[in-house]
């Protein structure tokens, strides 16, 4: 593809995203204006919600699973494997984290490590193992990636409530009575509004580290170069002597690792796994896919989009607590999903890695 075509593509994408970002900003400004002019109206309430520190802090917390799943999705898809099973990875890690903590005993400490952290790592491990299964199925056995991804989701959706029923007699686990808690940084946490960044769930700090780290790995390291080449032009990568399959395995396993952090943080932040209907993950893995498409496969952009979706979720939860507008809660709950739909409709024509979703045959790995 010539540079001009790429540039043109980039321009259209940028204009899409610029329009969307501009749209979001103008909606916010409109709410702010209306809220300031009519402080006692619904707009005043909305403005109060959007600018409150507790909304920011819950938006940060809610963006953790989406952001981590999105980061994972970027690595996998950049390497050439479409991982639509992120939802399943979140479910399996969320469940494993809670059940491991429960089995170890929430109050216990093993070699200096509190049980909840053992659960946290067990959740990550389960997600990595599950993504390894997905990787083998897709890369070694050349399964269709979409169907295999759906299978990963549906297996997790069946397995977690099944195992919970075996152990607890119901699809939800008991509450552990303990959570990951919050890490508070003195002084900084006293800053109004932005102090929420320094008085947060440990996973929030991990997220704030993982986003730039992912960007760095992807764009500034040899491994990142290999990952990108594996998705864009596997043949070239093969020609220079790098094993494409290995890079793809690494990409998928990394997606399992990252999604695992998100899933563990999700359930351990609450201290419970909720397994009815779509489980507590409730579409976050799919929202994550839209988040990284919106963020154009850039970790920082994906975080921005995840934060936007999580912010809507946080505002939506707070909005339910505002009495007197007669809008049913269930309808307000659809706001994040509708937004995801609109965003996807607007950024649908994203330029994805050229060889993503295709099998790559080295011709000599079939022994």
């Amino acid at each position: 593809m010539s540079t001009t075509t790429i540039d043109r593509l980039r321009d259209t994408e940028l204009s899409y995203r610029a329009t969307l970002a501009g749209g979001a900003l103008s909606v916010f400004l409109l709410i702010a204006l209306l809220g300031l002019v009519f402080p006692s109206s619904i707009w005043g309430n909305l403005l109060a919600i959007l600018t409150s520190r507790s909304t920011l802090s819950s938006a940060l917390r809610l963006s953790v699973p989406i952001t981590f799943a999105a980061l994972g999705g970027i690595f996998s898809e950049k390497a050439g494997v479409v991982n639509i099973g992120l939802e399943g990875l979140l479910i399996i890690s969320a469940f494993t984290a809670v059940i491991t903590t429960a089995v170890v005993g929430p109050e216990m400490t093993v070699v200096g490590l509190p049980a909840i952290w053992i659960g946290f790592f067990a959740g990550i491990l389960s997600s990595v193992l599950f993504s390894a299964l997905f990787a083998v199925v897709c890369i070694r056995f050349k399964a269709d990636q979409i169907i295999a991804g759906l299978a990963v989701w549906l297996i997790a959706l069946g397995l977690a409530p099944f195992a919970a029923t075996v152990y607890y007699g119901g699809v939800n686990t008991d509450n552990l009575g303990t959570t990951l808690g919050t890490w508070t940084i003195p002084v900084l946490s006293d800053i109004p509004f932005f102090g929420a960044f320094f008085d947060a769930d440990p996973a929030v700090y991990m997220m704030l580290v993982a986003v730039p780290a992912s960007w760095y790995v992807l764009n500034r390291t040899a491994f990142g170069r290999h990952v990108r080449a594996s998705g864009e032009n596997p043949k070239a990568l093969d020609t220079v002597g790098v094993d494409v399959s290995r890079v793809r395995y690494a990409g998928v396993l990394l997606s399992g690792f990252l999604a695992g952090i998100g899933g563990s943080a999700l359930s351990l932040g609450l201290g419970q796994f909720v397994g009815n209907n779509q489980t507590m993950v409730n579409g976050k893995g799919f929202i994550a896919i839209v988040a990284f498409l919106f963020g154009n496969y850039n970790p920082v952009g994906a975080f921005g989009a995840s934060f936007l979706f999580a912010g809507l979720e946080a505002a939506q939860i707070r909005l339910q607590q505002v009495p007197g507008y007669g809008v049913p809660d269930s309808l307000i709950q659809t706001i994040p999903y509708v937004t995801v739909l609109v965003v996807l409709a607007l950024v649908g024509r994203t330029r994805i890695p050229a060889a993503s979703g295709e099998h790559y045959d080295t011709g000599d790995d079939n022994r």
Partner: protein
Amino acid sequence: MSAAENAKAVLRRLTAASATERILISFAALVLAVLVGAVIILVSGRITTCQTAATTLFGTGFCYDPVEVYLVLFNGALGEPFLLNDPALFNPNWNPLNFGFALTLKETTLLVFTGLSVAVSFRAGLFNIGTQGQLVLGGLATALFSLFVAPVLPSGLVGGLVLIPLAVIVGALVGGLYGAIPGALKAYADANEVITTIMLNFIAAQIAFVLVSEFFSNPDSQVVETTPLPDWATLLPVAFPQGGDFSILALAFGLALVVGVWFLLEQTSFGYDLRTSGEQPEAAEYGGVDAKRTTVTSMFLSGALGGMGGAIWVLMVMGKWQAGVPSLGFDGITVSILAGNNPLGVVPAALLFGTLKSGSLAVQFGTGVPKQLVGVLRGLIILFVAMPEFFRMLGSAIDLEPDRETVAADGGALGGDDE
């Protein structure tokens, strides 16, 4: 997402594979899923606690015995024709028109509709995961339509003959329109249909919940549900027992639809357009097929079949719409994949999966293994059908297939360098 092109290539490959091979793969996938399920049952038998071990392997006791679980499952789904743990083996009091078998056929009937819905979209190269949402809203439309129209119709057989077909059509229409939304988003905005349909599932569940809880709720009930329909406006069991919620009429309608959809896909020019846009989109465009319109129409058709599934769920099973609709749409994915996305294959696949679903109740009752086991098998079956290459490698490794040429019929591209 590019996966569309890749998916189309895979679908093309799948269609090129011989029917025999497809049946073998589905069968092997089912067997493998059952085996992995057995391991999961054994492992969960270690997690749970019990007084006496159900089985002992390698000196370790397990609370659940997988062999017993599957025997109970199969036997329960047929209404216990066999006496397990009894030398007589056959149950002399067994009657084919029994409760357990009615449950199996009930599940089968519903799965025929959702399986067909998924099959139509998959054949068109569209991954419609939204059958669930289409079913939820289609079912709700059927229930509300029946409730509003029933008072002006004569009650009894005549009223039923007028109302039931109309109610099914309304369900189909609403499901179809809801399915056309992701179709249009795909055709005109290139929005990946996997994600849009999943988002629309969430939205459908919430909208239906709000509509019923705020406007159409049954005042005499604590749960979110509509007022029950009059009996004459529902599909009542004919020969089977009352509690089984199975109407042979609905199954007959489903089977007629199977033939209809098969005819539409295989024998009409629309079906040809639909299949070629799924298998060879470029060729279809070149041949003058309006790809965008075909996408929207296919999704409408798929949604309409899902909506009809919802209508049958309301008319045959519930007699009302109730929140917490079972995940029949997701089961439909398994049924369609097991059927190789072939409408005719949907019937045996629905029967197989229907057996698993209804038998799981007997399993929960008889052995204590939670009925959610079926949810695990649902995913495992999809996973194993998705990896035909695995079975090919397995086949060549143990050399059970002397005529490997037939296997290569799967469209040379990959078959060539298998060795």
